[in-house]
């Protein structure tokens, strides 16, 4: 099968931009990606796009041009961007189209997400009782992982320190100031063992990618980045997910492990071949656990990896080179595509002060979210 190529990338900076809607940001990201690819909107044959909370992506045709193109809205929770990308890539692989867009955007209100029990199939008492908080899930999951695999709270802090250091070097990041380890560890405890600086926040932002068939990419004369795998999976039995009044005593796998395995198989590479990775870091414990769930290290090895700085920009496997969700915030619809955007930047060697060394050729991205979905991509050049 011929490859699907990424021939253009565009981003609207993450964080808070007053007076600009989520859709405005989506339009800006598409325009920026078109310019990067050197094509015009009428050249685009199809689009997949979505947001979790900022409206229908296809309404942007009134701004970009009513060319009559096929535009399909995607709404798939935290995997919205990954699902748009997977489906766009499939449309090219099928031979139906040669040039299209995947776009994701969102603009969330300040503060934690505000879920309703009924929307999650839960009884009202569960919310009344004070269990309807994502922060509790993240904290209990990493607490048990730390106990089983010997991860220290200092290591959780090191993940955050790295994130803010990298975010300071990324133009599109929200939090642009480094934060030192002591400040992170001593900041307000939110949900033990996680402090304020160890959590990402809901935010705003948009990303668009222009995808082309191999033939089309060659015709455009670009040095394309190849999308070798784009997978999305849901949770297997016995996984631990947010808002769970009970868990099976027989513990099982994770959506992440399924999506990761499928992506490595599709791309014909293994974790040892990856030069740079963007891993879901809703909080610092998530990055730790996802290093292992994606196959980059064994459970417990993260303690040594972080102590040795192996995931820093100058490390053996740089992780979250733009500061990830911790520094960029998490606009749900855009977050997964931001990871792919950052990987394209790194593979192009365009990372500036945050460019990883070693002439990277293979890049990995991983999204995870409620209620147990994961999307993985592998890019090569």
């Amino acid at each position, binding site marked *: 099968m011929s490859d699907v190529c990424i021939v253009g990338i565009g981003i609207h900076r993450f964080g808070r931009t007053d007076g600009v809607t989520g859709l405005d940001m989506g339009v800006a990201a598409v325009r920026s990606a078109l310019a990067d690819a050197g094509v015009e909107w009428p050249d685009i044959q199809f689009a997949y796009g979505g947001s979790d909370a900022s409206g229908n992506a296809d309404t942007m045709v009134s701004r970009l041009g009513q060319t009559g193109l096929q535009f399909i809205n995607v709404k798939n929770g935290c995997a919205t961007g990954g699902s748009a990308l997977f489906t766009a890539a499939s449309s090219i692989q099928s031979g139906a189209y040669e040039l299209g867009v995947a776009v994701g955007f969102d603009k969330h209100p300040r*503060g*934690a997400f*505000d879920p*309703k*029990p009924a929307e999650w199939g839960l*009884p*009202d*008492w569960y*919310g*009344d*009782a*004070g*269990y*309807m*908080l994502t*922060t*509790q899930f993240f*904290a*209990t*999951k990493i*607490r*048990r992982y730390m*106990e089983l695999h010997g991860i220290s709270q200092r290591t959780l802090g090191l993940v955050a320190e790295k994130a803010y250091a990298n975010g300071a070097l990324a133009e599109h990041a929200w939090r642009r100031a480094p934060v030192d380890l002591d400040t992170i560890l001593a900041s*307000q*405890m*939110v*949900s*033990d*063992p996680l402090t304020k600086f160890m959590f990402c926040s809901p935010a705003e932002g948009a990303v668009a990618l222009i995808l082309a068939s191999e033939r089309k990419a060659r015709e455009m004369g670009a040095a394309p980045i190849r999308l070798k795998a784009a997978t999305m999976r849901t949770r297997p039995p016995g996984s631990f997910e947010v808002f*769970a*009044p*009970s*868990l*099976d*005593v*027989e513990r099982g796998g994770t959506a992440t492990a399924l999506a990761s395995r499928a992506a490595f198989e599709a791309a014909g590479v293994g974790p040892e071949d990856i030069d740079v990775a963007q891993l879901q870091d809703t909080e610092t414990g998530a990055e730790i656990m996802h290093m292992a769930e994606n196959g980059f290290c064994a459970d417990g090895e993260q303690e040594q990896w972080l102590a040795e700085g192996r995931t820093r920009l100058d490390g053996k496997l740089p992780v979250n080179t733009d500061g990830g969700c911790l520094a960029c915030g998490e606009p749900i619809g855009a977050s997964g595509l931001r990871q792919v955007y950052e990987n394209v930047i790194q593979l192009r060697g365009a990372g500036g002060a945050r460019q990883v060394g070693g002439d990277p050729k293979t890049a990995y991205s991983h999204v995870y979210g409620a209620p147990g979905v994961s999307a993985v991509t592998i890019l090569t050049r």
Partner: protein
Amino acid sequence: MATRPIAEGLFEGGPQPRLIGGRHRDSGKYVFPLPSGAEAADYDEAPLSPTGRLWSYTVQRFRPKSPPYAGPEAFEPYVVGYVELPGQVIVEGRLVGCALDDWRIGMALRTVILPFLTEEDGTTITIHGFEPAEDQA
């Protein structure tokens, strides 16, 4: 004073309270709470073990947003844990009877019914939780 559970069908009282779970008719797997509505047809009511071990926990340090949180306005941090009821299911609940920093995974626990909120008419709303128990292992 009158008392009323936060919801019907979650637990039964008495000297040693128990949670009421559901046992799936085909797989034999336990869940809590006992499902209601259309899903209930797949489950038999199953009283759960009153004792278990702490599987994981955290401290809720800030007052959750209302709605949905319906707890007292005056906020005290509370401990949320998952407790493994042997051979049955791991259940989420409040943890009481120990300092915030003294909880340890693996601790022996037993089910308790706790006051959650006092309503204006003096009615006490109760909720299930767990407290440290004698280790019988």
